[in-house]
Structure formats: C-alpha cells, structure tokens
C-alpha cells in the first residue's frame, strides 16, 4: 500500500491503529515528489526545515501538506511565483500557517501558481507552468494549480489554496480533486499575500470531502489580526457529513446552462443532479439575472484592488531591486520603474494597468463605482435565490482542462474560464468543487455547489452524499 495515495482521514486511522508513522507518511510523499514532480512541476520549492517527528506525532493531525506560494511562512521564502518577490523571507507566519503548525501539519513546500494568483492555468508563473497530472500536456487550472496538481498526483496528502475568482475550485475541477472556497471571513487572510482583498479567501484542496471538512476545521475561525474575519462560532464540519440530502432544496440557475457549454460537462452535471435527486434532493430552476455581468464586474473590482495591493513591490524594502545603468528620471523613479518593469510578468502589468485606469479620476464613477453597484446586484441575486433554495448547483468550469499554451495569447478567453466561479467571490458565499465525471479524453469534470454565507455545512452534506454514492473521487492518476 502506498501511503501517499491515501486520504488524510485514512492516514489518521492508521496512526490510531499504530500501523504507520508520520515519518513513513512523509517519506512516501517525498518519494512521489521525486518521482513525479519533474513532470508535474507542482512545487516551486520544498521546505528546508527538518521535521521533528517525535514532537509532531503527539499532535492531532501529522499530515503532509502543500502550501500555495502566497502564504507567509516564518523564515521561508514566499514569492507568489513572481520574480519581484525573489528572496523575500517572511519574519512571521500567516494565521493559517500558524494554525496548521499547531495542528501538527507537516509542511512539504510551496506550490506553483499564477503570478500573484493572476490567472486560470498556472502558466503565468515566473517558475514556468505546472502540468496537469491527468494529461501532462494540459494545464492544471489556476491560480492554485500547483496545490491541486500536487494533491491529484499524490505529491501531497492535502493542500492549501486561495480563491479570488475560482482559484481553488477551477484547478480542483481540472485535476479531479475537492476544492472549497469558504465564506468570505470564515478563514483569516492574515499572511495571505493580497490579490484582491475583498474577494480573497483561503481554503482546502483535498482528495475527498471528509478531508476538506477536517482541514477547514483546522484553519477556520475569527482572527483579531484580520478585521474582515467573522467573529462567529465555527461548527465541527465533520458532523455535517450526512449520507442523505432528503428535503434539501437545490436550485439550478438557468443563466449558467447556456449554449456553448461543453456538452460533456453539461451531461456530467445533469447526471450528478439525477444522483442527488435519487437521494432525496428537490431540484428547481432558479434565476440569477445579473450573472452575465459577473466577469466584467470581477475584472473591475479585482484589478482595482490589485493595482493598489501590488504598489508595495517597489524595490525599497525587500524582494527585487533594479536600478537602470543609465539615469533616466530621478534616482527613485528610475528604481521604481526598472524594478517593477523587470519584476512583474505580463499579467500583473496588465492588471495593474486595468485597475489603475478604473480608479483614476474621471473614470472612477464609470468603472469602479459602477462595478461596486453591480456587485451589490449580483449579491442580491443570491440573497433572493437562497430565499427559495438551500444550495445551488452548477458546473465549476465550462470546459475540462485545456492545453498548455492554448489560451495564453487570448487573455479574454482565459478570463472566461472563471465564468461560473466568480460570482461566489463577488457575493462572498461558500462554494465547493467535487469530481463528477471524466471526459472521453479522460480529463476530470467538476461539480460546483454553492450555499448561503457561513453555511458550509450544507455544502459538505450535499458533496458528501454525492461522493459516497459515486466513484469518481477514487479514480487514481497514473503519474
């Protein structure tokens, strides 16, 4: 039996039966990384810290975990897969990292991502693309592509990602794993290097639903260091893993099932709906009328916040500093320009330009302010829908994983791969992606479930019921 192919809860069972050790589990993961990561390239770097197995074995969750490269870890390099943060070593742990360390999690290393989480394919990385373990010619999705690929390829038992417009769920869908974006405010953002502060949320990427519930238990909760985290009690999510959905009302938004949707994806979702119907869920058609504005609204709000959040990478305190050989303007302006020109890739530059533009005087009302207003309308759509139903089901992405290089020349078509995931970020609600089938090319398809704010329990219940009565999550990658 290969330990690295097990789920976290299976490994925890083995620990309780004294059938394996944290050291054995960690080394089986390491062996797989050695074997597979030269092809998958899920990791940017592995942790240099030695693990104190004796100490860690006393803790509750001695499970190897992969961390997206945008969460600060004490004394370790964190770069957001950007050249501009080369060499940045954080003097503090992100709250999520602190909680994980306390729980006994063994940090494997930092996973690859789109630079500053800008992208849907993990191709926008200073360190090169990550490959989809199901088909190495395909992208793993993004921006948490490294985390999703690491879990799918059994190079990690579980992983942490961040989701601003679908960055956990879309790669989970492309890699055939479970990915959860919790409610905005459920998990502390302290130490998560910001992309868009009002949309970013940290969440688990796991092999099954039970693992997602266990991992969310570890990382969720109020943090006085994050004013946007919710001061609400956190339930034990493993208690919501009921194998039935009797009486649950689930909505199917008509705006999400549009012409042009990949027919294999559509069929998989329809079959998933049948499964849940058989276990007692009541389905109805609903409408989220402002759906068509979601992508545009997202790219206004997210880029505006990003343009400001990325201003601090100026070469003054940390990371890259570049000074041109020839003086152009003033010493300081030259340093800013050269550092940012050299340090940022094309996508950050594109988004900084977009965001700066929409915040500029004379354009603010027409773009940013209007974006905020439409965001409120999108949120209202969900409020109204959740007056009728307990959850909403959609595909996670309109297609399965696409080929590496296929969309890099066309940012707009790349942006559309987040069309089903963006609304959950704009409205702050929780959403999960679980495997619900495979295309004829053997690429995973993801089912998205969305619920009311702070009702992750309903997500888990529906996802768990579906998972217990299907086998998609048991299909193993061959890398």
């Amino acid at each position, binding site marked *: 039996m290969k330990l690295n192919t097990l789920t976290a809860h299976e490994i925890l069972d083995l620990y309780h039966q004294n059938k394996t050790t944290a050291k054995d589990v960690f080394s089986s993961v390491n062996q797989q990384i050695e074997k597979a990561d030269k092809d998958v390239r899920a990791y940017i770097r592995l942790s240099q810290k030695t693990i104190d197995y004796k100490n860690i074995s006393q803790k509750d969750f001695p499970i190897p975990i992969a961390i997206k490269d945008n969460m600060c870890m004490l004394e370790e390099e964190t770069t957001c897969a950007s050249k501009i943060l080369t060499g940045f070593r954080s003097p503090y742990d992100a709250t999520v990292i602190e909680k994980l360390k306390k729980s006994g999690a063994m940090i494997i290393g930092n996973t690859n991502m789109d630079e500053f989480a800008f992208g849907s394919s993990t191709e926008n990385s200073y360190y090169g693309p990550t490959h989809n373990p199901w088909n190495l010619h395909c992208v793993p999705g993004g921006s948490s592509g490294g985390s999703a690929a690491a879990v799918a390829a059994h190079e990690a038992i579980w992983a942490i990602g961040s989701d601003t417009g679908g960055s956990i769920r879309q790669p989970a869908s492309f890699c055939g794993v479970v990915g959860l974006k919790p409610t905005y405010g459920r998990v502390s953002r302290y130490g998560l290097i910001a992309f868009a502060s009002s949309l970013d949320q940290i969440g688990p990427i796991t092999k099954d639903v039970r693992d997602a519930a266990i991992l969310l238990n570890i990382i969720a909760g109020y943090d006085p260091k*994050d*004013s946007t985290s919710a001061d609400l009690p956190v339930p034990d999510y493993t208690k919501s893993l009921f194998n039935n959905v009797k009486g649950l009302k689930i909505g199917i938004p008509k705006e999400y099932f549009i012409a042009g949707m990949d027919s294999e994806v559509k069929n998989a979702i329809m079959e998933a709906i049948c499964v849940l119907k058989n276990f007692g869920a009541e389905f109805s058609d609903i409408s989220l009328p402002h759906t068509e504005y979601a992508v545009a609204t997202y790219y206004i709000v997210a880029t505006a*916040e990003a343009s*400001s959040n990325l201003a601090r990478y100026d070469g003054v*305190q940390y990371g890259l500093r570049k000074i041109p050989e020839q003086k152009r303007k003033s010493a300081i302006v030259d340093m800013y320009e050269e550092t940012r020109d050299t340090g940022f890739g094309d996508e950050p530059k594109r988004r900084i330009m977009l965001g700066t533009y929409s915040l500029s005087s004379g354009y603010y009302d027409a773009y940013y302010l209007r974006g905020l207003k439409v965001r409120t309308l999108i949120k209202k759509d969900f409020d109204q829908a959740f007056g009728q139903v307990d959850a909403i089901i959609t595909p996670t992405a309109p297609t399965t994983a696409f080929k590496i290089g296929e969309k890099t020349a066309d940012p707009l078509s790349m942006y559309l791969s987040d069309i089903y995931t963006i609304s959950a970020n704009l409205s702050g609600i929780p959403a999960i992606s679980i495997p619900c089938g495979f295309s004829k090319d053997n690429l995973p398809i993801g089912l998205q479930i969305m619920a009311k704010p702070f009702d992750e329990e309903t997500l888990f219940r529906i996802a768990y019921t579906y998972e217990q009565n299907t086998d998609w999550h048991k299909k193993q990658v061959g890398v």
Partner: protein
Amino acid sequence: MSSNSTQKKYEPVIGLEVHLQLNTRTKIFCGCPNVFGKDPNSQTDPVSLGLPGTLPVLNKKALEYGIKAGLALNCKISPLIKFDRKNYYYPDLPKGYQISQYDHPIAYDGFLMVPTANRLKKIGITRAHLEEDAGKLIHDDQSNSSLVDYNRTGTPLMEIVTEPDLRSAQEAYDYLHILKLTLQYLNISDCDMEKGSLRCDANISIRKVGSSTFGTKTELKNMNSFKAVKAGLEYEIARHQKVLEAEERIVQETRLWNEAKGVTIAMRSKEEAHDYRYFPEPDLVPFVVSQEQIEDILRTLPELPLAKLERLQKEYSISEYDAQILIQDPTIANFFETCAKQYNDTKKICNWINGDLLKELNERKIDFKDITLHPGQLVRLIQKVEDGTISNLGGKDVLKIILDTGRNVDQIITDEGLAQVSDDGTLKGIIDEVINENKKIVEQIRDGKESAIGFLVGQAMKKSQGKANPKKLGEIIKRRLIS
C-alpha cells in the same frame, strides 16, 4: 502705491490644514509602541512595515481620540466609520498607499472660537479625519544615499481642515494658538511642532476688499513653528499683492517656506499633479459608532480653554489678563484654583503664580506639571509675607529654595534665618542709632518732608542686614519724629 493703501485694497483669504499626531500608546493599525526619538526602525512590526500579507486593525483608542477632538471642535461626528486608500509612491510609504478617510471624515462641519485682536472670531472647521503617518527619509550625504526610518509609520494622525475663514497671518497664528491649547486640554497629543507632532500647511489667496469670489491660491508648506506660519503667510500675502499689482497672474502651486532666507519657493509643479485614486479600504470593514458611544466620549470632555477663561474671571474676580495666563496650561489653572480655595486674596495668588513662579520655572526650564511646590505651600508662603514674618524679597528666596529642594516654607524660614525682626525693642535701638547719625535728614522730616522717612528706613535696613521689618521701621520712625 504705498503698502498701506494696498493693504486696504486687498484682503487675504487663508485656510489651514493641521496634522496632529495622537499620543495613543500604540500605532493606529497595529500593536507597535507609538513613541518618539528611538533608534531608527526599532519601533516597527510586519504590519507597520507593510510587509506582504499583513492587515490593518483599527486602534479603538485612536478612534476615541479622534471623536474627542471632533467634539471639542464642535463638529458633527460621522456615525459611519470608513477608511479609504490614498495611493501614491514614496519610499517612506511602505504599502504604496496611505490609509486615510476620504468621503466620510470622522468629524465635519464644526467651528472653533478664536480670540483675535479685537474680537472672538468663529472659524469654521470643514472636516477632521483620521489617517496613518508615513515614515521619515534621511538623506545621508556621506554615502550619497537615502535611508528610511519607519518608526513614525502608522502613528495615528488627525488632519484638521479649516474653512477659508482666516483674514490675516495674525489670525492664522491666533487660530493655531487656541487650537493647540484646546487639543492640549484634551490630552490627546503632545502638540509639539518641533517634534512634528503638530504640523501645519496653509492655503492662501488674496482678493479685492468687498469681493466675494476667491483669488487663485497657493499652498504653503514646510513651516516648523507658529511664527514660521505667520511669517510665511505674510511673505505670501505681500508676494500675491505684488503679482496682482503688476497685473500678472498668480500660479496655483505648492510653495515651500525657506526659514533661513525668509522667502517662499515654488516646488516643482510635476510633484503636485497627483491623482490619489482614493477607494474604500477593503481590509477595514466600515462600521457604525452608536450615539451612546459618542455621548460617553462627550461626557469625558474637560472644560475647554475659553470656558475656563470666562469662569475663572467670574468665580475668582480676577482680571482677564491674569486669567489668560492661567489658562495657557490647565495644570496652572488647577493649581490656582486649589490655592484660591485656601486663601481669599486671588489677586495676590495670581501675582505670585503669574509673576515669580512662572519666571522661576522658565529659568529652570521645568514644566509646571513637574514642580515640587504644593498649592498649600504657596498659600503658606503668601500668608508669611502678608503677616510680615518674611519680607517680599525673603518670600522670593523661599520660593526659589522650595523649587530647588522641595523643603517646606516654615522650615526654610527657620533654617535660612529669613524671618524679619519685628521686635520693638531691637528696632528702637537701631532707629536711635540712625537718628543720631542723620541729624540733617531728621530736621527735614520734622520740618514736614515726610518722604525722607524712606531714607532713614533704608539706613536702618542696612544696619539690620536686611532682616528688619521695613513696614514696622517706618511706623516707629514716623511716631518718633512727627507725632
């Protein structure tokens, strides 16, 4: 055209922006100590350095201080507390934006009554908002490089903006004086321009007297004292007049006051073409302060300077001049009031406090709040002078000794032998000697030249080595020679 006639022709229109550092224990968005004068970059943490991943959390004390200041400036308090980002690049700004308040300043629409030369003038307060201070750039000539000290980064700041209600440089000075005093009463800031805990920029334009439209304004920066604000404004007013009289146009620009040369110099216009791209700070969730919270803070407001000025005059029958001196520091006013409860002659108390005591403290460079003198001891001292135990001069000596040693009045009089000789027998002996030695003067006095008694008193004082009670000497001499 003489300068006199131009002064009548034009009137200045001035508005001031004051940046006030609040003296909270910690910084506005993190737990770093908020202290001045420490080693560079020793008072920082990941949040104040703006490191990747860090988030701000509002210091509730800074909010309370802000509301307090707003209430003291008769402002309306915004129930919605909301912050915004002001985006610009500068090496002393580690996040590339400053967290400030844009469309919902914490306080707005207030006023301050300003005592000016001839009347109490109401100066409008447009708004007062909270924000974070930036760090400090230090230019090192030796290495030809710039260094940054982030200790000041995140110090809570309150920006207080007036309406363009001020009509002269002197009025601007008067406004700053009463503003500073008011803020000192609230005990929310050191208000020390030298340390930068109070900074002031000015907007100035001039217009024809009687006109209701505004002229083109210039913004004036880099004034490091109230006097510099006044001097800078005076210079700008004269410069504007000259430009207009030459029928040229004022350029709207930012100008820096050069203290050494006594002139203002235009900053490069490039640096002022800022678009700050304000937008709501997503890391701080807007929230509402309740009316009860605001009223709770209102109840903690102390008596403010002008109210105290009026009350002291009324309650203790002292002059406006004396009351003015007392209110310059609430500690002094309190000291006075404690004395006045124990001693009826409030004029005498004022004379001692406002005269000798303040003079001595000034010489010793001691702050009033640090003195060793207890109000009861000052009262005792005044009583001892008034009942003749010690002379006025002796009293001054006692005061000095108390300030230097903290000993009590009675002990000092005994130990230093400062008691006056009032014993009739001793005094008569001395007077006998003086009368014998000054026969001519005695004759003159007997002939009616009473003013010459003073000379004999002086001679007697000399003989007693200053210890005789001069009042008593005068009485005895008069009795001996005239009646």
